[in-house]
């Protein structure tokens, strides 16, 4: 098998390969060290981080659904200061890029988070714009182009780190949001976050999740994610990190063909903790079998058909 090039350059963020792990599903990386050679990953999007520590939602926090799951963790995390002081030193020397996923309830929250992280040795910031804006009655930042753009601008003003903006699929036209965040200065777009859903226990006659609603992830959302990547790839000029239901190398390849420059694996880590390594090996094999020398050659192939 000849060596194929797997490195990808995402507008300045260079990954040794395009396989990353999705925020909230892979902890801070360490949690998977028994199962995965962490140094072989392209990047790790760490658990959603907020200014203050957060306890998160009551339980049950997850529910299984057909080929998927709902989660309402409620962003439990130790806060950005703890992350910088206690966790970052443990992971900063790993070969993977450390990408910090940030969440806020006001634009100022995001700006403050970016200012704190700008002074550290992280490799990139991923802005989670699926959070509720308290000043807009809890409407998620990512659901309106103006709000989404203001968050990106505020973060951009604080840091020159590569910026990834993570889009919410719970919108009417995802390309409109994508264009707005591109214009506001994001370097990269990642998509998709979870789709809002609910599951009801028919014996207790109430929602299973303590939070009632939760985010749907896993194989069930893959077709929606592929479609959105395909649409956004045609609407913007910046690189994309595609995710949503990726569980096998075949799934990952669909995302590259739809226009993703890199991929992220979430829920599938729960099902098979070694899945990222299997996808990485499978990707090399696919490229070899199809006589490609470089993973970048298959990006967006399905777009021209």
């Amino acid at each position, binding site marked *: 098998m000849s060596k194929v090039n797997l490195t990808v350059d995402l507008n300045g963020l260079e990954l040794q390969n395009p396989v990353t792990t999705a925020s909230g599903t892979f902890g801070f990386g360490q949690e998977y060290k028994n199962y995965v050679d962490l140094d072989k990953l392209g990047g790790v999007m760490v658990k959603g981080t907020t200014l203050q520590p957060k306890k998160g939602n009551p339980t049950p926090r*997850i529910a299984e659904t057909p080929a998927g799951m709902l989660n309402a963790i409620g962003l439990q995390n130790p806060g950005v200061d703890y992350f910088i002081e206690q966790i970052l030193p443990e992971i900063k020397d790993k070969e993977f890029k450390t990408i910090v996923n940030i969440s806020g309830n006001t634009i100022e929250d995001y700006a403050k988070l970016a200012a704190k992280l700008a002074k550290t040795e992280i490799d990139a910031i991923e802005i989670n714009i699926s959070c509720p804006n308290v000043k807009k009655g809890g409407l998620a930042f990512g659901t309106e182009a103006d709000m989404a753009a203001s968050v990106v601008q505020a973060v951009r003003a604080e840091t020159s780190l590569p910026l990834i903006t993570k889009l919410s699929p719970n919108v009417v036209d995802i390309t409109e949001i994508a264009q707005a965040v591109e214009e506001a200065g994001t370097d990269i777009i990642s998509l998709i976050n979870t789709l809002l859903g609910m599951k009801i226990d028919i014996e207790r006659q109430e929602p299973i999740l303590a939070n009632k609603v939760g985010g749907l992830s896993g194989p069930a959302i893959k077709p929606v994610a592929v479609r959105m990547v395909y649409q956004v790839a045609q609407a913007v000029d910046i690189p994309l990190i595609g995710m949503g239901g990726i569980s096998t190398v075949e799934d990952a390849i669909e995302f590259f063909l739809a226009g993703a420059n890199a991929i992220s694996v979430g829920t599938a880590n*729960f099902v098979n903790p070694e899945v990222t390594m299997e996808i990485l090996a499978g990707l090399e094999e696919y490229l070899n079998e199809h006589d490609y020398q470089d993973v970048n050659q298959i990006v967006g192939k399905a777009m021209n058909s």
Partner: protein
Amino acid sequence: MAQRVIKEIIDQQKIGPGYFKLVIKVPEIVAQAKIGQFVHIKWVAEDSGADPLLRRPISLNRINPAEGTMTLVYRVVGRGTKVLSKLTAGDKLDIMGPLGTGFSISEDTNRVLVIGGGVGIAPLYPLVNELVKQNKEVILLLGAESAEEVIDLSSFEEFDLELKVATMDGSLGREGFVTDYLAELEQEIDYIYTCGPMPMMKVIRDWAIDSNVAGQASLEERMGCGTGACLSCVCQVKIDGKDGWTYKKACTAGPVFPLREVIFDE
């Protein structure tokens, strides 16, 4: 160190109404397994990986390093356990383990109370075995719906210990709750271990606080990753500090927690 292995089932048998016992040879995992730990399992079926999607956490009922085998005892309660119950010898299981922090035994305790309810009896066998081996005086209280659901009864009867059973239908031992025995305990207890339904453990915790006896409880919570990454499985545990409690992960800090510090949905 926990690991993931795929192995064939050696034997699976129905042992009661909806109760199954499954034996699997996994020397890698068994060699490291400790009492009270669990495995996170998924059946391997060609082309049907996505349904049901997630793994299921099941406690270790027998840990046999000499044979390299472990036994799981579980009750069919939903889709996942139903699929699991249909598997037979030769079918494959995908196993992550051993996981979690199990029971610990202190040298300073002598008279120990162990209380199990329903399928919560399953993880107690290795514990009781070890307690007896260490010459502790064990009082074992078991509760279940009916006689057929008292897991490992005949094995427990072989031990030198005080055994009392309560069943809801009165088919074995006293009719009613196993916790009804608490009020009648004659001797002082040094320590308590428990696993079972939440209402049962709540009564035991309150009794433990009133009686000033420390102990450990094995809890259940829905799990995603099983390895500390997803924060699905958190349990409320009392701590010193501003709020007086914190969420701890059942898959890493637990499933066994200090009994008197557990907050049960209150």
